[in-house]
């Protein structure tokens, strides 16, 4: 369904398509600034939206610098620390990373950073592929409430939230809706 969501007291739009575009383009600039060796960078997206974001950032990097940053997929479902505690088993997908990782900077890419447990699982997954020179983290939204000592290197928008609130990210590649970020209050 490609219906545009209507704003209501319960759902507030926080970012529209243009804001998302500017944020990701800025992240691309920051990545270029901090990584002089762009061919050594690998943007590893966490499915599903992280993968779409990683590809968009790679496209901006190509557009701005003329250089290619490799992209990959990091599935975290097999590396979660809560297997057997959830009633529904998370769907697993095949991962792929450009190998070898030894000289590379792997940038984990996800849509929302919350407790940090997904990122921990992503680092665990990366370690089974090899030992990259460094790992960085890029997120579209940081909503606070970290449960682990994990911090992002590149952030699209800082959005302090209450625990009972929800962040909804919609991207046209994955959700078939216009790009948007919504804050939902229960």
């Amino acid at each position: 369904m490609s219906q545009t969501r209507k704003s209501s007291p319960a759902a507030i739009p926080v970012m529209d398509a243009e804001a998302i575009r500017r944020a990701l383009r800025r992240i691309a600039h920051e990545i270029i600034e901090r990584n002089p060796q762009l061919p050594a960078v690998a943007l590893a997206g966490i499915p599903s939206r992280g993968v779409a974001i990683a590809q968009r950032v790679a496209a901006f990097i190509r557009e701005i610098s003329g250089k290619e940053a490799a992209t990959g997929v990091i599935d975290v479902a097999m590396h979660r620390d809560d297997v057997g505690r959830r009633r529904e088993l998370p769907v697993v997908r095949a991962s792929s990373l450009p190998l070898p990782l030894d000289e590379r900077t792997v940038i984990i890419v996800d849509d929302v950073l919350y407790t940090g447990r997904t990122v921990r699982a992503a680092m665990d997954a990366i370690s089974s592929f090899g030992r990259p020179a460094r790992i960085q983290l890029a997120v579209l939204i940081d909503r606070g409430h970290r449960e682990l000592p994990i911090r992002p290197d590149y952030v699209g928008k800082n959005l302090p939230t209450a625990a009972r609130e929800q962040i909804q990210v919609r991207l046209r590649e994955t959700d078939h809706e216009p790009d948007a970020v919504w804050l939902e209050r229960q």
Partner: protein
Amino acid sequence: MTARWTRKDLLGLRELSADEINFILETSDAFKQVGTREIKKVPALRGKTLVNFFVEPSTRTRTSFELAAFRLSADVINISATTSSLKKGETLKDTARNLEALHADILVLRHSSAGAPQFLARRLKASVINAGDGAHEHPTQALLDLYTIREKRGKIAGLRVAIIGDILFSRVARSNIFGLLKLGAHVTLVGPSTLVPREFEKLGVEISHKIEDVLPRADVVNLLRIQHERQRREYFPGLGEYIRLFGLTKERARLLKPDCLIMHPGPINRGVEIDSDVADGLQSVILDQVTNGLAVRMAVLYLCGGIAA
């Protein structure tokens, strides 16, 4: 998201829906990738205990399940009939209950009695995986066969699959028949009339006793091992006779379409059901089956073992 797998056990393919079977195959894609990593291990079943309980002996299937469990970070115990307390007269139910008292999470069972896995699944909180029960089912073998076909040919629906050999006593054949038909393949059973009963037609398969008629149209040929003990029970006159009528010789292999897959659950009897050169030839995917077996078993253990008790 609606849960696509909710079972704690895998007992057979007969009771699974096409959707469930496809979900296992899709999940296997993810786990196949783990075998290509530098560290072939994910923590998905960390802290879980898997018991390989092989009352009927096996090396290949047991090793495959063992490796699959290790790759998922589970702990593995192997019990075989000769070393188990079954020899001392303990019942199957009591042996399994004892294992559960040790907090075994997953029981992989191979047993000569059909229904043994189901018997235990009903009584245990642990997940029970059927690794072969009598002549009834061998679901993970059929799943890896389906996975291999899907990998090589892109699909299952509409393909013509010939299963050749001792169908009557084969749990591999039965599980394959259920799985292939559910996913829309055409199945033809080929073998001596003593080993391919006509009643199987009721399942929705064709039957032929002339291999040359079936080979030219087949997209997949799955050869079953001829078990030598059948000879003595007079199901067919002798190995020589079997080879002459049903062996996949070099000459017969020429009748196959160039992209026809040649499969075998193993271990192969070179020169009996399949010519040595044909087994090693380009159309043979026998070794792919082994690799895929690992991925499929990882998927099954993850799906059954990962559900909260």
